């Protein structure tokens, strides 16, 4: 299996940079992001640079094989500030550098600046090409803007790029979803990587307060199965629950997450993982900047996983990918029939099984597998 090599990429190390600034808040978003802190951008970028430098000294930060600017909306950060943070990160040759963009920010100038700074990959949120569905998601951009921006990204010459779609928004019909998929795949240069997310109701979001707009699980299951079929037919291979890629276009950085790999999160609310210890930074940019300026550790919390937790987590993550889990890690019961299939000595989720991945995960028996290699 081609992707199982990517999972478990030895020597890989990722750096995630959180950019907590947005022009507006989407109804479904539960990320640590803010619409009223733009005045902090410069000091925030400075603080990120400081945090990187300190991590190099204090933690012996390895060379990054991938860097990911996520948010929030990284494309709202002036390109020179983003470049300054990226410059501070020591990168291995061939390092993948992804920046998440909003369509309304994308211009040729911005993309050129990114290319010049060493960005190799763009990930852009289109979500839907139906104006009604976009409106229901609380997204500001127009479908035309998104497709035009996608065309610019496709022509700019990045090594790879991705579009995000969301299905199951209020008012979305099966036809709307088919059209969104069709519009994206029908671009002159279609994206080599696609993420398609089932709209999820996160507690505390405006969406959570409106049950009438909550997605129907069965409808989402139908659209997921349809998505997988359409993308497989168009030459994309399933990469992870919500991700599909053309050969060679898997996101190396995300692969690291799913392989329980090591990464360092920079900026407010960013999470890190090194060898079974997970920790995360202060949630608001103000407090993060203040801590860094005061020379104080910005860590807000941490946990150290015991051997069993690590083994369970490792299996739970791998189960979300085509790598699957060792056959011994799942009991051979009739209830899992049709949800899991054997691929060599691995048990891999079927399309139906992917939709029920949580349930299958609760059946995992980590003890049957032994220590992680």
């Amino acid at each position, binding site marked *: 299996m081609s992707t199982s090599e990517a999972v478990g990429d030895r020597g890989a190390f990722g750096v995630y940079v959180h950019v907590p600034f947005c022009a507006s808040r989407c109804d479904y978003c539960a990320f640590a992001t803010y619409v009223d802190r733009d005045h902090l951008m410069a000091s925030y970028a400075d603080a990120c640079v400081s945090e990187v430098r300190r991590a190099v000294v204090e933690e012996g930060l390895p060379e990054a094989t991938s860097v990911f600017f996520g948010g929030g909306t990284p494309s709202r950060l002036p390109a020179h500030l983003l470049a300054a943070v990226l410059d501070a990160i020591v990168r291995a040759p061939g390092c993948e550098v992804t920046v998440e963009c909003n369509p309304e920010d994308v211009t040729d100038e911005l993309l050129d600046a990114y290319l010049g700074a060493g960005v190799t990959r763009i990930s852009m949120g289109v979500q839907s090409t139906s104006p009604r569905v976009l409106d229901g998601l609380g997204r500001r951009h127009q479908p035309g803007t998104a497709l035009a921006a996608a065309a610019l990204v496709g022509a700019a010459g990045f090594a790879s790029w991705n579009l995000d779609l969301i299905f199951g928004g209020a008012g979305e019909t099966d036809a709307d979803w088919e059209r969104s998929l069709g519009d994206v795949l029908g671009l002159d240069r279609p994206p080599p990587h696609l993420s398609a997310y089932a709209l999820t109701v996160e507690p505390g979001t405006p969406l959570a307060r409106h049950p009438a707009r909550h997605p129907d699980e069965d409808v*989402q299951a139908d659209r997921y199965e349809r998505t997988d079929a359409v993308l497989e037919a168009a030459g994309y291979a399933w990469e992870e629950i919500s991700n599909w890629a053309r050969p060679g276009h898997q996101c190396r950085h995300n692969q690291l997450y799913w392989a329980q790999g090591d990464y360092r999160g920079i900026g407010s609310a960013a*999470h890190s993982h090194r060898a079974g210890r997970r920790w995360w930074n202060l949630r608001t940019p103000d407090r993060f900047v203040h801590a860094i300026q005061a020379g104080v550790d910005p860590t807000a919390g941490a946990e150290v996983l015991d051997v069993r937790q690590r083994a369970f987590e490792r299996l739970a993550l791998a189960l979300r990918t085509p790598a699957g889990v060792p056959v011994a890690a799942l009991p051979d019961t009739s*209830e899992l029939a049709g949800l899991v299939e054997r691929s060599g000595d691995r048990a891999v989720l079927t399309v139906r099984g992917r939709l*029920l991945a949580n349930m299958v995960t609760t059946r995992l028996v980590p003890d049957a597998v032994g220590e992680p290699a």
Partner: protein
Amino acid sequence: MLSVDRIRNFSIISHVDHGKSTLSDRILELTGAVDPRLMREQYLDSMDIERERGITIKAQNVRVTWRDHTLHLIDTPGHVDFGYEVSRSLAACEGAVLLVDASQGIQAQTLANCYQALEHDLEIVAVLNKIDLPAADPERCAAEIEQVLGLDAADVLRISAKTGEGVPELLDAVLARVPPPTGDPDLPLRALIFDSAYDQYRGVVSSIRVVDGTLDARDRLRFMHSGARHDIEEIGVRTPEPVPVVSLGPGEVGYLIAGIKDVGGARSGETVTSDVRPAPEPLAGYRDPKPMVFCGLFPIDGDELPDLRDALEKLRLNDASFTYEPESSRALGFGFRCGFLGLLHMEIVRERLEREFDLALIATAPSVAYRAFLTDGSEVRVDNPSELPEPSQLDHVDEPMLRATILTPAEYTGTVMELCQSRRGELVRMEYLSPERVEFVYVIPLAEVVVSFFDQLKSRTKGYASLDYEPEGYATADLVKVDLLINRAPVDAFSTIVHRTQADVYGRRMTEKLRELIPRQLFDVPIQAAIGGRVLARETVKARRKDVLAKCYGGDITRKRKLLEKQKEGKKKMKSIGRVEVPQEAFVSALRLDD
């Protein structure tokens, strides 16, 4: 020994909240029985639940002195469930103070207790309380008392137990109007136990009223109903603090401690006599308390089963009127089938178990004791619906009936009749007590009353209607057992016995409710309500198709792992019924919603 003509024994009959405990407090203060510095509210109510709910569960008695006379105030339990206890307390008195809230008028249960007092030939001293309140309407209430009970409105006293106004006059009226006890000191001893409480240091402490003869602290006693013999450890009077005495003569009220291990050994209504010189006949009126309402009590955490058993044993030391026996349920695990005098009694026991013993419990829907007559001519008593034999074996089923008295403002006449009819009540009598108030008497199945009848009555009459009831034998009815099946396996905790005409409604309601509460499984799960093999209602919990979390990136991993760990842990606590994994909370919610 006290001379009987200087003794007055009386109780206070009153509705919840009409001020009985407050009046008792005032009497204790006025007669100097309690040091004012030690006074606290509801002095005589000893249980937390009594203070919180403002009701008396255990009867108390207290001896006070007023104008050279000895007054025994015998407090009666304040709820319809404890009607028999009330009757025993009244049997220890010659008079009763009828205490009525002047803003509310007489209530059904007060009226019932008052009729009981009249049956015992007690002198009634009618009193209107809370005359200091702006809403008080003493004229109307007095007229009503005259109309309903035939007491002269002019003799009705007016007091404020809160301020103490009129309380000395009330005590004077008790002296003047309540007759002194009669009783022959030379006859063999006969004393009535009218309440017993368990004390962890002393064992059972009984309230006792000497009727004939003399109770001497050196006597060996015979309990005429239980047949047991006991040596006296201590007799005494409550002032209200216990004060030991050497003897109690006719008409005297006090307490008795005789090395008895649980209150079942000294039931209310027991006649105590001398073992050496026994009386030929016990006092009249003894009755074994019979549980009327039943439910299963299960620990939510199965590990607490031994604690629940211990707690029930301990409670039973102090309350001989509830029963329990082990029960096992596929849905709820191991627990106990318990019998109670009534709904409030059930609530109180459950609340005490949860509060005093720190247990988390789930109760099945209350049931009553049916008599099932089988085609082979035999008869089975069924207090657990899941145990009712199959329809093919049943000839007919009898259910316990009540004679219910309801007092309501006249404007709610239609509402009350509608409720009673929908609960299969048969109107026996309807009478206007005054142009504004109506009394209804219905014969109604107990089973219809135990399920939210009282709440419905209260909410439909804005709280104005009041209810009293007494058992009225058994009646045959077209009753069926409705079973709930999950994936074709019956869930015992939801089996219920209803009238055939209500089976469909119950079946539909429960299948819909369970459909909402049972999590979707990997396969379609039918939920059915059935009588025997006949399905009344069916719902389907559609197979679950999606539970996966869409996103799993760096910041999501910890949260996601915790969620999955929790789900994995939760799976262990699922009850498996017909291959369906159901969290116990689903059953618990279904039972709660069924209230």
